[in-house]
């Protein structure tokens, strides 16, 4: 791989066998590489499906690079940081683009620190016509900021892929998969997992339908209306942070900047005001429905359908209508 490339970095196998968010980030990567006059590479670490080469071609990747090592069979942060850092030292890319999942938050900045690069997260757009300029959200999304990146040879950029739409390349490529050699023999994970997460059923991140409740529900008992409507619609229940902090429901249901970043076909929010930090986790929904007793609530600015009223009166009717 020539130096100064734009490199999309992925690991893990998502629902369709591909790393989560990879095709969205590849779409942005292709645009950035074209503007920068650079090659687009895709660095995939650890086990991956057979679909990889085909997808790389569809998305215009010039070179598909693989790091495979027994130590990378499952997510191993110290090893992953070492692998990506070694890759950077021998290939000197201009930018590493990551899909921003929770794991990325420990990998991207550590790689930047290790190789003396720069790092930015929450990125929603990249302009590569001159020096790299990236647009990121700040204050939960109340503002956007533009950062200019210069003074380091490599930048690690974590992209919020829910804000992007995947688009295959007009001219597909035919990249050969190359194996990248790294030496991970001396790397040991400093913290060992003593208890794995007990994932309970499907994840909000993958849900097509989400029904969420907020402080407007009034009492913890009323959260069952959210659960019932979610079940009636074949979806999953979500929540705003205050009711998670209050213990009405556990934190695996929290939607937002510091919770789940979701992208459902339908997001129905009841008794949620629409603070930017909540919307950061659901504004990519195709159809957003808001129920709020305050007609001036911010959530209506994002909604496709709005209902002004008491959610405690409307939710039971919705449950009936959904079941009929």
């Amino acid at each position, binding site marked *: 791989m020539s130096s100064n490339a734009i490199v999309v970095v992925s690991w893990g196998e998502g629902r369709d066998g591909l790393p989560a968010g990879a095709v969205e980030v590849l779409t942005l990567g292709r645009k950035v590489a074209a503007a920068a006059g650079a090659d687009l590479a895709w660095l995939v670490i650890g086990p991956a499906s057979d679909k990889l080469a085909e997808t790389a071609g569809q998305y215009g990747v010039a070179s598909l690079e693989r790091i495979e090592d027994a130590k990378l069979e499952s997510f191993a942060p*110290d090893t992953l940081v070492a692998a990506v850092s070694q890759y950077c030292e021998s290939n000197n890319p201009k930018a590493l683009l990551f899909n921003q*999942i*929770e794991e990325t*938050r*420990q990998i991207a*900045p*550590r790689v*930047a*620190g290790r190789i003396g690069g*720069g*790092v*930015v*997260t929450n990125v929603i757009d990249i302009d590569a016509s001159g020096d790299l*300029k990236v647009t*990121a959200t*700040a*204050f*939960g999304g*109340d*503002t*956007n*900021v*533009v950062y*200019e*990146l*210069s*003074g380091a040879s490599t930048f690690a950029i974590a992209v919020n892929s829910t804000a992007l739409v995947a688009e295959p390349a007009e001219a597909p490529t035919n990249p050969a998969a190359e194996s990248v050699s790294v030496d991970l023999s001396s790397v040991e994970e*400093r*913290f*060992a*997992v*003593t*208890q*794995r*997460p*007990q*994932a*309970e059923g499907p994840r909000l991140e993958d849900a097509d339908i989400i029904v969420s409740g907020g402080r407007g529900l009034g009492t913890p008992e009323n959260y069952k209306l959210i659960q019932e409507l979610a079940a009636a*619609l*074949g979806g999953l229940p979500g929540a705003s*942070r205050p009711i998670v*902090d209050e213990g009405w429901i556990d934190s*695996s249901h929290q939607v937002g900047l510091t919770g*789940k970043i979701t992208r459902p*076909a339908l997001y129905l929010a009841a008794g949620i005001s629409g603070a930017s*930090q909540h919307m950061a986790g659901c504004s990519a929904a195709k*159809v957003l429905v808001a129920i709020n007793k305050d007609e001036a609530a911010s959530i*209506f*600015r994002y*909604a*496709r*359908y*709005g*209902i*002004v*009223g*008491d959610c405690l009166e409307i939710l039971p*009717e919705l449950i009936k*209508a*959904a079941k009929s």
Partner: protein
Amino acid sequence: MRIVVCAKEVLDPDAVNNYALAGRLEIGDDGKTITQSAIPQLINGFDEQGIEAALKLRDAGADFTLTVVSIGSDQKSLLKHSAAMGADEIVALRTEATDLDASAVANILTAYIQSSGGADLVLCGRQASDDDQGVVPALIAEALGMALVPIARDLELKSDTLSVTRVTADGDEVVEGAFPAVVTVSNELGDPRFPTAKGKMAARKKKPTVVNVDELGLAAEALAPKVKLTRQFVPEIQGNCEFLTGSPADVAQKLIENLRAESVIQ
């Protein structure tokens, strides 16, 4: 044992939200700074929870000195609050620079920690509620050569190891490893305690240690920003909300019909 908590002062995010919700958030003539002087500065909420995490370890019987350190030009109230909560030592790293990026902030905090006797545990917030970046702790971990354990809801000291319950996308995970380490704290840890009257009295007598960033002996390149903020703006939200009206039963019926017609639900 020494625990260092890194704490940042930020604009009160709830006040920023309220201005944003009212459509009145203003960016100054420089095109990058929120100007409303009525928005107070506060300790970043996750950093306050970092202090709380340390105090919980103390409640559980751990013996350590607790240092809270903050970079900025005027950290008095943040540090007083930290002392009132229970910090043994409060440290202001003073600089007038306004263009420090995450790497520079991490380099300064690292240099301070190294020059003041090191740390067994560095606690940070999972992210600062102004820039939302969540990268400084990882950069500190790399600079200090420490392990990074992000997004903790609970910490437990074992005889010579640290056990951390982390919030992950798949649920809680428990990890265990040796000191030293950098741990970032999330809101799942629970609300930080209020300072007691006794704590406030003691804080009044406590003087912050003030260190000028120039005294830390950092090379110019360690402070030069690689990530430069050039513009900040309030994004526009395109509303096209269709309001459904009628009795609760009517609106419910209309909504379900519309969603079915659009094949959003079955």
